């Protein structure tokens, strides 16, 4: 059985004058020990997807429909006290900006200990020892247990966040743009840590990112999101070698090629859709070079092609 199974998830934001349909009918599943990357532009709904799984969607948003079955339990229907026990314990999270993700007034080690003591019955000494172990696991010297967040660099702070996320031995970690605020070297280090954790501890990852190159490099499977819809789902190798959805193709082409010298930078013309009043039919049609009349009128179904998933009229 899959670790995580999402069916028909809809998460909307209810603003005073409009309703933003950030996640509008998304379904996929995730196995144990698998890293799935959710790729899309900003405004595609990928962050909201991550927050929905954690049930941390901020007001005025909320989950409107669908199910999120994690380890056999539908998280959407879970009461809040139960959800608190899942959050941080069975599902961990790493967010984008490490500079502001830690309480500036509390020592770093103390924050780790707090997390451990919240979820486990252990003594303070045990928790401290455990915390230091995990700091080491992510490559931070255990003496830095007593330091404050502002004494760490961005990359190290992110590693602390990862340590906190995995210290409770979760089965799933959701990482929302974990390396966007870091430089390339740190990015490589962080992704390395993820891969190690995946392989050594068997933790599943959902990596939310706008960087398709990163996804192809590190993830097992890739889910491409556009305008609140899941438009393609396949292994990273399949995506790289044979992208099916026009948007996926455009994303791959937009990746700058170091070797091609005279080529102009390819970009995708147009703007991401306004999710409060999305275009009718396929959400991508205004920017799609292959758009037909049908694309403009009807939302494409989820089509299965060679064991993969595509949401496009070209294949249906």
């Amino acid at each position, binding site marked *: 059985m899959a670790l995580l199974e999402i069916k028909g998830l809809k998460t909307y934001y209810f603003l005073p004058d409009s309703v933003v349909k950030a996640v509008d009918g998304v379904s996929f599943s995730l196995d144990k020990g698998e890293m799935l990357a959710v790729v899309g532009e900003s405004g595609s709904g990928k962050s909201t997807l991550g927050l929905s799984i954690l049930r941390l969607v901020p007001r005025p948003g909320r989950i409107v429909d669908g199910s999120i079955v994690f380890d056999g339990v539908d998280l959407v229907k879970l009461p809040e006290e139960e959800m608190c026990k899942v959050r*941080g314990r069975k599902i961990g999270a790493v967010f984008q900006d490490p500079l502001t993700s830690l309480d500036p007034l509390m020592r770093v080690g103390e924050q780790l200990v707090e997390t451990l003591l*919240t979820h486990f019955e252990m003594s303070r000494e045990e928790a401290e020892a455990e915390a230091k172990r995990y700091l080491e696991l992510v490559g931070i010297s255990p003496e830095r247990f007593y330091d404050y967040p502002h004494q760490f660099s961005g990359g190290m702070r992110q590693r602390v966040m990862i340590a906190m996320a995995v210290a409770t031995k979760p089965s799933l970690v959701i990482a929302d743009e974990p390396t966007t605020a870091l430089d390339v070297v740190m990015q490589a280090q962080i992704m390395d840590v993820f891969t190690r954790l995946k392989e050594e501890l068997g933790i599943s990852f959902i990596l939310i990112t706008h960087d398709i190159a990163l996804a192809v490099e590190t993830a097992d499977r890739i889910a491409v999101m556009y305008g609140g819809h899941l438009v393609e789902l396949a292994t990273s190798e399949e995506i790289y070698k044979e992208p099916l959805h026009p948007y996926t193709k455009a994303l791959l082409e937009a990746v700058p090629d170091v070797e091609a010298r005279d080529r102009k930078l390819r970009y995708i013309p147009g703007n991401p859709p306004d999710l409060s009043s999305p275009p009718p039919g396929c959400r991508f049609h205004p920017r799609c070079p292959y758009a037909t009349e049908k694309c403009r009128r009807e939302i494409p179904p989820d089509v299965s092609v060679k064991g993969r998933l595509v949401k496009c009229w070209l294949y249906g």
Partner: protein
Amino acid sequence: MASLRAFIVMRLLLTVPMVLILLTLVFVVMRVLPGDPVTAIVGMKTSPEHIERLRRELGLDKPLWAQYVDYISSLLRGDLGRSMIWGRRRVIDEIWDRFPATLELSIGGFAVSVIIGLLTGTTAAVKRGTATDAALRVASIVAYAMFIPVLGMMLQLVFGVYLRIFPVAGRKSPWIDVPKITGFYLVDSLITGNIEGVFDALWHLALPSLTLGIVLSGIYTRLVRASMLDVLEEDFIRALRARGIPESAVIFKHALKNAFVPILTMMGLQFALLLAGAVLTETTFSWPGIGTFLMERIEYRDYTTVQGTIVFYALLVSAISLIVDILYAYVDPRIRY
């Protein structure tokens, strides 16, 4: 710490013109404004010689600039003047006698206002957008618009007359005897082991502190709410929740601590309001502090004492402002530059 020392020096230098301006302002108010102080004191019925003697005594016969110089130089000597009535005591002694009472009341009021402000502000921030939030915001506006004597009298009626729980006036009961060591009944009773005295002092402090505290809390509620809302929007709050930290710990252990720094900044600035409010509170509850003293001497036309007391207020405000600024520089290194 060298930069802290530099900051203190700079700040002290800045205090001098500020104090000078306030003192000059007091001088202008007291001497330059229309209204002859002498006739105000003695009326029209005395002999011209008597009036002349008083004039000379008060230094009012000298030219204005000479008066100003006298004024400043005596202040530099720490001389706030002498009372014109009764025992002709030194103003500074009279103020010193009554200062503990005002300080006691001020601390009591301050404590109440902060406690109420923290509780209501935090609740309003956490329940933002709900009816509770709106109700608390309106309550804080009402509290601030409340006239201190009105609230005081209401509390006196309800708790003092109808329910008879608290006394309605004064600082201690006549049958309690407390030796005067520090001037603070609470402290003196504690030191001498007089438990009855401690309770009596607190009992009398209750209604006045509550009155002053409720009215001042109006500002704090809004402040705490705004500060908490700012903190609650920060990323680390979301990260804390994502780790499954219970909401109560998120609010009280993490958010509130972070929200406190901007609140602290405002507290120093509210000191002036505290002093002003204390005057009204003292008058309403017949509390023997500097406020009632000032009004009493105004009524008796004890002109020198009134001037000395206003000067005292000016010096007090400047001193507190200086201390508060230095405290912040100590706590937050960024302010030093």
